[in-house]
């Protein structure tokens, strides 16, 4: 692990990071509840437990930088600054949702925030991230692109070829592989032939690093280095983030493929929020009161969002055929 650059962040930046992680966690816990209660339609994949990855990476990015996400996109969206209420409404299919209710959980996007979309296609994001990076390179904006991919998605051909392509053109792009141990029910230790995903970096002529995804600072520091390299013309980087998800693959998954007690242990010992709190309070960077205030604040926000989303207006019939093509 690199020496703690993240630990040198300002109090404000640290609180912001914590707030972002807490917002994701609360969002996902509440989505879980709402889904169980039958209030949410569609397929939903929760990011709870993985917050340090999205936030650790996105804390280096601004609205001009771009990310491509996966089916498990809520966390990336929030970390990248998407409007939380708009996301809630989107999950409900409201016309006030971030995508007017036409996308849903798997297609949350806000290009104005640099969030190019969750993606229902495993391996759909990496080629698109090349494009954002190519635009940054061509237009010399100094911006970067990040594509988040799961361990399962790391085995998709589109992902592999994107890495080679990025390297050939020295594109400012990060390939962040979120290895949570499973693709649906299939183990990553089985599906990734070379063991750790980071072992693939040399095959694509790029530096690679593996980080502890339960620790914000571990992700933050590796991503910071990679983003700097990308911004300064040094080309792509592969980052493998190792951790585990707190819920099933999607809502409804009974998770019988997991070991007994696996999730309980994760929640107890590997909760990135708890670990973050411990590290910053032990180092005297933040105090519990400040963090508790964030927790309360976020809980309030989430209450308001859930309520607003339930009451939000529904799409009108004319929306069915709107926005297929540009009208001139």
């Amino acid at each position, binding site marked *: 692990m690199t020496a703690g650059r993240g630990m040198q962040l300002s109090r404000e930046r640290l609180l912001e990071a914590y707030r972002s992680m807490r917002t994701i966690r609360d969002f996902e816990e509440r989505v879980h509840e709402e889904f169980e209660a039958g209030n949410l*339609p*569609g*397929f939903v994949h929760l990011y709870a437990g993985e917050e340090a990855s999205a936030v650790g990476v996105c804390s280096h990015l601004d609205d001009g930088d771009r990310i491509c996400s996966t089916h498990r996109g809520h966390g990336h969206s929030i970390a990248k600054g998407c409007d939380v209420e708009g996301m809630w409404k989107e999950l409900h*299919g*409201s*016309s006030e949702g971030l*995508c007017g*209710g*036409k*996308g*849903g*959980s*798997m*297609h949350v996007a806000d290009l104005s925030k640099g969030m190019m979309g969750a*993606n*229902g*296609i*495993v*391996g*759909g994001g990496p080629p698109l991230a090349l494009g954002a990076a190519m635009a940054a390179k061509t237009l010399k904006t100094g911006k970067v692109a990040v594509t988040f991919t799961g361990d*399962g*998605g790391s*085995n*998709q*051909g*589109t992902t592999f070829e994107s890495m080679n392509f990025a390297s050939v053109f020295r594109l400012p792009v990060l390939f962040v592989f979120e290895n949570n141990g*499973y*693709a*649906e*029910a*299939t*183990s*990553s*230790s*089985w*599906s*990734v032939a070379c063991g750790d995903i980071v072992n693939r970096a040399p095959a694509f002529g790029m530096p690679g690093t593996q980080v502890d995804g339960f620790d914000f600072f571990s992700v933050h520091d590796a991503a910071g280095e990679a983003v700097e390299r990308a911004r300064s013309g040094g080309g792509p980087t592969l980052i493998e983030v190792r951790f585990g998800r707190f819920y099933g693959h999607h809502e409804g998954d*009974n*998770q*019988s*493929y*997991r*070991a*007994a007690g*696996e999730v309980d242990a994760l929640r107890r010992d590997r909760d990135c929020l708890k670990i973050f709190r411990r590290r910053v309070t032990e180092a005297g960077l933040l105090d519990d009161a400040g963090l508790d205030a964030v927790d309360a604040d976020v809980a309030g926000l989430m209450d308001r969002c859930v309520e607003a989303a339930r009451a939000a207006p*529904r*799409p009108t*019939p004319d*929306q*069915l*055929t709107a926005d*297929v093509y540009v009208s001139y």
Partner: protein
Amino acid sequence: MARVISMRKAINEALFQVMEEDPTVILLGEDIAGGEGSPGDDDAWGGDMGITKGLQPRFGKERVMDTPISESAIIGTAVGAATSGLRPVAELMFVDFMGVCFDQIMNQAAKFRYMFGGKARTPVVIRTQIGAGYNAAAQHSQCLYPVFAHIPGIKCVVPSSAYDAKGLLIQAVRDDDPVIFFEHKVLYDEVRDDVPEEMYAVPFGEANIVREGSDCTIVAIARMVHKAGEAAEALAGEGVECEIVDPRTISPLDEDAILESVEQTGRLVVVDEAYPRCNMAADIAALAAREAFGALRAPVRTVSPPHTPVPFAPELEAAFIPSAGKIADAVRRTVGYAA
């Protein structure tokens, strides 16, 4: 004696039986058992909709294989193995994922027999989910079978009943050509009908006359057969008798059955959940306009979704899917047509 079972159960049973019958049948796909390499249950999922549940415990990991998420490799493995002595049944979880593996289907499997001068046989089956109805949004709700029907060399199966699903899947596995087997995800549980326990095959290219009637022919595909049935019920109350033709396979297509019905009714409505351009509704309407023109007494109506991606919001999705109401309206316009 036949039992009433779901299409879900019918497909599962067909897979059990073909694997019992023929040791060269193997199954592969993402999480079709669901648990490879994981610490818990190896057959945790039995496919993302549970359709292949129980097959790996019965037939073992050598014949029922979870795979990495690599659709080109999955389909390629199945196709290559089919030319090498096996009869693989691969699962493409959702047809929406064809975009990352279509080459292995359309340029490889579909063309071998012809391109190699008749010397290759490629008995591969690709099972895949189609259709809207679960608010699964734009990338998990498409039909796309017209894209496959467009390609010469692949057979396309679109069952609408549990009975047909079982018999057509058994036929698909025995067939020596590449077969794409399209399963409408809503039908897995929505449809339950009489299904014999023993093995039987439903031949390809033979439409099923689901309902007889003399006023208007409705050709409908997959889930639309049931929507057409609802419409026909309603119309019967108005004194309009519809004949419903379910092609069951769209490639090959039972043109004769369709034309024969149109010759009798003089009217045709085609119902297709696939996007409206270059879809099966157009294909069949064109067939009638070419081959049954003299019999036609009204415009051929098509009932398809609008030309849009599948929207997420439940009310928009509901409006996207052709409904019994829209079908009935189309029939009414057809029957009420005055030249």
